C-alpha cells in the first residue's frame, strides 16, 4: 500500500482497523508497521474526528417496553395472506415484489375489474354497431314477412274462389 492509498483509506474510514474494508486491512496494517511515524502523522487529524464521533455515540440497549408494545400490536394485526407468485430472477439484493410491498388481493381485484371494464366497453361498441345495422335488417325482415303474408293471403283467397 502506498502513502496516498493509506491516506485515502483513513480519510474515508477513520483510523480504526475494524472499520477498514477487509480486503485492505492486512496491507494497511503492514504499511502502518513499516512506516510508524508517517502513519501516526496521517492518523492525527482523522483520530480527532473519530474521537468526536465516538463521544456522540449512543449506547444501544434493548428496550423491553418498546418490544412489548410491538408484540402487542403484532398480535392484533393479521399477517398478509401468502400469495404464491412466480417472479423473475433479478439482481436486486432484497425486495418485496414491488415497491417494498407484496401484491395484495386488492391489487389483483383491481386488475380483474379493469379487465371486466375493458371487456364491457368492447361489448358495448360491438353491440352499438350491430344495433345500428339491425334497423335495416328488421325493416327488410318485416317487409319480407308482409309480402309473404300478402301473397299467402292472395293464394288463400284465390284457392277459396
Amino acid at each position, binding site marked *: 500500500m502506498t502513502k496516498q492509498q493509506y491516506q*485515502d483509506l483513513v480519510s474515508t474510514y477513520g483510523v480504526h482497523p475494524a472499520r477498514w474494508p477487509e480486503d485492505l486491512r492486512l496491507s494497511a496494517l503492514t504499511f502502518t508497521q513499516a512506516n510508524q511515524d508517517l502513519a501516526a502523522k496521517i492518523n492525527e487529524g482523522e483520530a480527532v474526528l473519530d474521537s468526536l464521533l465516538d463521544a456522540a455515540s449512543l449506547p*444501544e440497549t434493548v428496550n423491553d417496553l418498546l418490544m412489548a408494545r410491538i408484540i402487542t400490536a403484532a398480535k392484533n394485526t393479521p399477517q398478509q395472506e401468502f400469495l404464491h407468485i412466480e417472479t423473475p430472477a433479478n439482481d436486486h439484493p*432484497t425486495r418485496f415484489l414491488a415497491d417494498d410491498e407484496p401484491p395484495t388481493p386488492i391489487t389483483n381485484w383491481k386488475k380483474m375489474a379493469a379487465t371486466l371494464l375493458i371487456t364491457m366497453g368492447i361489448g358495448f361498441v360491438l353491440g352499438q354497431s350491430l344495433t345500428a345495422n339491425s334497423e335495416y335488417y328488421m325493416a327488410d325482415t318485416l317487409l319480407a314477412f308482409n309480402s309473404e303474408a300478402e301473397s299467402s293471403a292472395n293464394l288463400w283467397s284465390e284457392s277459396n274462389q
Partner: protein
Amino acid sequence: MTQNRASGFKTNSDPDAKIVTALASGDPAALKSLMERHLPRIKSLAWYMLKDEMRAEDIAQEVFMKAWKHAPNWQSGGAKYSTWLYRVAKNLCYDQLRKKQEIHLDVLPDITDPSIASDEAMIQSDKLASQKTKIAQALTALPERQNLAIILCHFQNKSQRQAADIMEINVRAYESLLARGRQSLRQRLNPHKKSLLKDMGDHA
C-alpha cells in the same frame, strides 16, 4: 403451502432464515427473537438520522410491524434479511425528514448518570450534552446520504458491502459519500475542535 412461505431463503446462509420462516407462520416468539437481534440497532439508526427518541421508537415499531405483516411474502434476491430491515428503517427516516425539514436538535435522549450528585458533576454533564449537541448538529447539517454513510460506518460498524446494500448504491458510491461526509464534518467541527477536545478531556 407453508413450504413456500418466506421463499426468499434459497440457502441457510442468512442468520435470520429460521426466525423469518417462523415469523411467516405467525409466531410472535419469532418476532421477539428478531427484535432481540435487531431492535437496538434499528432504533439507534433511526435516532442518529432523526435525533428524536420518540420518533426513533415509532420508526422501529413500524419496521418490525412491516416485518410481521409481510413475512409470509418476503422474497430475497440474495442479501441478508437484516439488510431489508435497515432499508425499511432508512426509507421511513427519509420520509420523516422530508415531511419535517427542520430537525429539532435540542431533543437529545437523556443519557444521565445516576451517580451525578454534585454541582461539579452537573457542570460536566452539561458540557458533555453541549458537546454531543454540537457534533449532532454538524452531522445533521450534512446532506442526508453523507450523514447516513457516516452513521452506518462509524456508529453501526457495518462493512462496506452491507452499508452499500442498505443504501442501495454500489461500494464505490458509498465510499465517495463517506469520504465527502467526513471531509465536510472536519470542516464544520474545526472551529469547535479545541473546546470539544477540552470538554472531552474534562469529562474523562
